[in-house]
């Protein structure tokens, strides 16, 4: 009898210790991920939307845009919502390579079931898999721990040492010294009403650099990138998602850079045709008449006026080609409406101040770009 009681007490104590250990580990993981997220360097400062996307309500986005800065400058998800009732999310980051876009999309598909994914093609221009590690970090660092993240680290960081790889798994090791420079937006999300896009009214006059495309030759896409483009096609087909490629316009200010981008897009056009994927090559479209005097913030990115043109064009294209219902009025998409209202106020204020934009001087003068 005594032995039985002793045995019971022992068992109870083991169970208690086990649950305490589990509780400790759970608390640690929660605190750790919270602290890590606070210390993480936020992409584009306060408008760190690319990863705020994880906090969106499940299955509340019909269109996902992915790509580089070209995407966040050329698309306005608020306009898509306000004018067309399309709930869209822009998950773009500076010089986001196609391989990064793929893993980002793969991960986000666990939370969202979009009908269309629109990929901006600048990420295919690099002569390597990605442009720079810092740009890759913008995508991977804040990605929540998952098998997709492990797969991305495994495949993209092959040449890195083990401790180096671990910094992708635990970015706190890289960013912890930021405790001295934390800003309010590190603790709570700010400016997310722009939903991952940029709103800029600055312009430079690129009339003299209006591209003449006839002499540009095709430029091969890096084979590794082609593989990831194929993966993008596969994953969207597997998930019954329509895939669209698009290339936003640039000015031919730096000729070699322009040729490289345009030449790559010529190859991209072939690739898209080959795989039966629509490719919206903005510079080639006669419907779009970009004003090279007032539509460009810098040689590679459009401003609000250029963004409006591109957004309207893509919205019309999406509406006429895919089944995208008008979600306005649906309570599940309330946040889109709130953000749009906020956006409208900001927009009205800015337009009242500068109805034609803010002239920033001739090309070549110092450009103060947004934090990338």
């Amino acid at each position, binding site marked *: 009898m005594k032995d039985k009681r002793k045995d019971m007490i022992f068992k109870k104590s083991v169970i208690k210790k086990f649950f305490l250990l589990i509780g400790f580990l759970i608390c640690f993981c929660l605190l750790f991920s919270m602290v890590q997220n606070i210390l993480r360097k936020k992409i584009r400062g306060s408008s760190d939307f690319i990863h705020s996307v994880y906090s969106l309500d499940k299955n509340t986005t019909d269109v996902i845009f992915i790509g580089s800065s070209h995407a966040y400058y050329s698309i306005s998800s608020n306009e898509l919502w306000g004018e067309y009732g399309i709930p869209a999310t822009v998950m773009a980051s500076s010089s986001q390579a196609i391989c990064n876009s793929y893993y980002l999309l793969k991960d986000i598909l666990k939370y969202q079931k979009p009908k269309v994914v629109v990929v901006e093609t600048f990420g295919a221009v690099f002569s390597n898999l990605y442009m720079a590690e810092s740009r890759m970090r913008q995508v991977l660092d804040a990605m929540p721990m998952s098998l997709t993240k492990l797969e991305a680290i495994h495949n993209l960081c092959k040449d890195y040492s083990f401790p180096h790889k671990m910094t992708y798994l635990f970015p706190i090791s890289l960013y912890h010294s930021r405790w*001295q420079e934390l800003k309010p937006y590190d603790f709570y999300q700010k400016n997310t009403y722009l939903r991952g896009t940029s709103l800029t009214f600055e312009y430079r006059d690129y009339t003299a650099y209006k591209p003449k495309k006839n002499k540009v030759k095709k430029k091969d896409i890096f084979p590794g990138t082609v593989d990831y483009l194929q993966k993008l096609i596969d994953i969207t087909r597997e998930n019954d998602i329509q895939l669209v490629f698009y290339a936003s316009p640039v000015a031919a200010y730096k000729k070699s850079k322009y040729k490289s981008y345009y030449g790559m897009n010529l190859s991209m056009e072939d690739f898209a045709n080959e795989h039966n994927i629509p490719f919206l090559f903005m510079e080639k479209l006669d419907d779009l008449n970009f004003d090279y005097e007032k539509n460009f913030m810098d040689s590679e990115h459009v401003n609000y006026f250029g963004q409006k043109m591109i957004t309207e064009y893509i919205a019309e294209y999406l509406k006429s080609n895919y089944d995208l219902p008008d979600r306005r009025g649906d309570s599940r998409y309330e946040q889109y409406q709130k953000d749009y209202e906020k956006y409208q106020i900001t927009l009205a204020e800015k337009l009242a101040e500068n109805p034609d934009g803010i002239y920033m001087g001739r090309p070549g003068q110092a450009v103060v770009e947004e934090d990338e």
Partner: protein
Amino acid sequence: MLFNSIEFLLFFPLVCICYFLIPHAVRYIFLLVCSYYFYMCWNPKYALLMLTSTIITYLSGLLLEMAEKDPDEKRRTGKKNLFTALSFTSNLLILFFFKYFNFAANTLVRVFSLAGIHLSVPTFDILLPVGISFYTFQALSYTMDVYRREIKAEKNFLRYALFVSFFPQLVAGPIERSKNLLSQLSERHTFDYVRVRMGLTRMLYGMFQKIVLAEYLAIIVNNVYNDYSSYNGFQLMAASICFAFQIYCDFGSYSNIAIGAAQVMGFTLMENFDTPYFSTSVSEFWRRWHISLSTWFRDYLYFPLGGSRKGTLRKHINRMIVFLVSGLWHGASGHFVLWGFLNGLYQVIEDICKPLKKKFFHGKENMLTKLLHMILTFILIDISWVFFRATTSDGIHILKKIFTIKRGWFGGKAAIAGLGMSYPMIIVLLAALCVLFIVDLCRYNKMQLLIWLDQKNFVIRWIVYFALIFAILIFGIYGPTFDASQFIYFQF
């Protein structure tokens, strides 16, 4: 593999899990493999050196025990002396070659050049094997203990090899004694939740000492000492005080992690530090600082030299010898010898002044006099630390600047800013030093903090654990932008 590395963070839990899962009979072999792997992470070739030391001392133990059976006393003593001498000579020769050859050669060249003779002695570009002084001394203590018949020779070679290479204390101590550790290697250690928890807490505190305290202090020390001529007296004094705490936290942290890691697996290692900066005399300081080395020198050098049994003068000479050797043990350089010399000299003077002190204080000490003694001891020790950190000539310059109080000695706020740390970092450092002070004060007053904490409910325990973990994660100096600094004592 550094304790403060991601590799160790994976290595240690894996070793522990396997250790408790595999049968008891093969655990020591498993630990031996792990220990050699741990050591070979630095340089696989140097494991051969450790193996050589292990073989020599293992054989010396067996031979000594065999010699013990010789009925002829004279022959027995002769054999024993021979085997001990062979073990010591061969081990010390290895140590000499790798650690002191270049120093000895350069010294020889310099001495001869003073006499106008120019010698050309070849020097070798060899890397000092990590922890060579530690494991050599540990292995030699075994030979000596068998010689003195304090322990029986270990027959199982693998078990003995584990004694020499036991990874928690392999590269920076505590220098264990065969009497303590060797017997534990045959014991059965079961998984004890409380013991494991306490061991891990100790390791965590050790990590805090290293990654936050020692590394923060290192910023100031390195900044100032690496370009000492650009800094004023106050800054040099601040850096020198910081160095006293840096070396304590750096070395103390290693011992805490080592003792904690061993405790997790069920082994009890000897304490290496006992609140040294609360000492009221230099001799007390040496009873509280690097205890495993101090007692090693006491047992295997000071006592054989005659200790204090051969008169006062001999006692002073013996003490000076011990500290000169201790200086040399710490590094093959003149400034380490000077550091040892100063510490020996302090104690000789202390000994001579003892009657005076007794007369002055009548054997009674109040809080104030105790505090004054502590401060005076700290100042003396810190002066010697200057020669530990800097070369002899640099050390003299630094001390001159510190003690020459003239206009511009302090330098105001700009001098504090010039130490190389931002104000938020200085605040974190001061807070961390407060933690160190509280922990040491409790220990000084014989309060067992680990046991106290373990008796508290889980909420309090978790608050302490999380505070330490996140202090390390947020404020610690680590990661890819940080040049993984080694523990200072690894070079010895």
